[in-house]
């Protein structure tokens, strides 16, 4: 027993170091890319308010008010437009402003100045002028935390053109203007400049929203599938006013897919 105690006192710094590292890395691994939970909501409430204050100091008030009105009007128009285009499927759109955005990390995120009290909730897609940007993963009363396409922890479902093949869209953390479309069948036909659109399969966005265009480069072939570069349409350096959208009947579609015999696979 004494030997054990001597050992502990001799190496106490190393032991404390490993304990603290285990705590920090455990926290990091469990939350990286998907920071969720009660603390994030509290932190969002505080940080969102401060971020908004910071933003207000650097904004022209009159122009800002005008932008808000235009954005709200845009949201209404888009909402009715998507309802018509998507076979009657109802889409609710809320306008919001980005009060914080990180774009230099591999796990980027952004914070919106609207939260659950404004109708925003996790699972909603975020777009800007019809271009897909990311999705909300956490919402406090007045602020929401979202992950953009340029976060290497998340993947998106995308389609080449309106009727082309569907593939996985991922970001490799090298360039905020480019992403990769993976697992394309080798029979897929496409050309540089072709539009890459949302597939609508994940429920964050309706089908057909612009993500980017196929880059002018040779596709990589791994023996079975193709990987191609995408030039992203969104300018992540200058995000400001955005729209958060939810597909109203998506929950019933999800419930239906959960009830199938192979659900969960």
């Amino acid at each position, binding site marked *: 027993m004494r030997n054990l105690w001597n050992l502990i006192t001799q190496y106490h710094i190393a032991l404390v170091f490993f304990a603290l590292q285990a705590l920090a890395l455990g926290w990091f691994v469990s939350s990286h890319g998907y920071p969720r939970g009660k603390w994030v909501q509290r932190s969002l409430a505080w940080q969102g308010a401060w971020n908004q204050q910071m933003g207000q100091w650097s904004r022209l008030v009159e122009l800002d008010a005008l932008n808000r009105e235009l954005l709200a009007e845009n949201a209404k128009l888009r909402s009715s437009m998507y309802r018509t285009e998507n076979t009657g499927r109802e889409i609710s759109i809320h306008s919001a402003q980005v009060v914080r955005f990180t774009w230099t990390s591999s796990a980027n995120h952004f914070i919106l100045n609207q939260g659950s009290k404004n109708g925003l909730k996790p699972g909603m897609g975020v777009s800007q002028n019809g271009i897909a940007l990311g999705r909300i993963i956490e919402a406090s009363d007045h602020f929401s935390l979202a992950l953009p396409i340029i976060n290497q922890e998340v993947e998106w479902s995308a389609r080449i053109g309106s009727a082309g093949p569907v593939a996985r869209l991922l970001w490799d953390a*090298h360039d905020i203007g480019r992403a990769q479309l993976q697992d394309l069948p080798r029979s897929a036909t496409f050309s540089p400049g072709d539009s890459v659109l949302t597939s609508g399969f994940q429920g964050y966005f309706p089908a057909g929203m612009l993500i980017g265009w196929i880059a002018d480069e040779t596709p990589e072939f791994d023996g079975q599938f193709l990987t191609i570069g995408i030039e992203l349409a969104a300018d992540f350096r200058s995000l400001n006013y955005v729209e958060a959208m939810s597909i109203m009947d998506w929950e019933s579609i999800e419930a239906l897919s959960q009830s199938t015999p192979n659900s969960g696979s």
Partner: protein
Amino acid sequence: MNARFAPYLRVLLPLILQVVFFQYVTLVEGWWYLGFHLLGILLLPLQRSGLFVLLFSAGMGATLDFTCHGGGLFMSSAVFMGLFIPIVNRLLAPREGYEITDQPTISYMGSRWFIARALLLLFIHNVWMFSIEAGRWDLLLLAWGKATTSAVFTAAVFALTLLLTQRKVRSR
């Protein structure tokens, strides 16, 4: 200002500034990362035990993680740097050792000592932080590049901050 509170303020002020201001600073596409809270850890008295430095660094990093959605990244990096602080202090110790009144600032230890210590410790911190944050082997070189440029930039900012805010006491 009351001299009793000065050491606490010197350590906590950088953390407050990082949370309310410097976390928004993005320079040269992230190649110049500024972790201003690290100045608080670097300014801990030289006589503090290794255990205290570790625990203090953990607290500092965790506070930043809670307020900036770091998810443990800042805590892990601060603890990693905290482990090396006593080692670097011994490495850079004057031949006759540190005096009880010595403080890890430019005014007490001189600019060469401060910059060498800050560069070494910030490099260690940044390499750990950017490597974990990269999360993939193919991004490691990029991460180490950012770690190096950020360490140089941050050390320069720290030196400038101390030169502008501290009175000259004596140089060793």
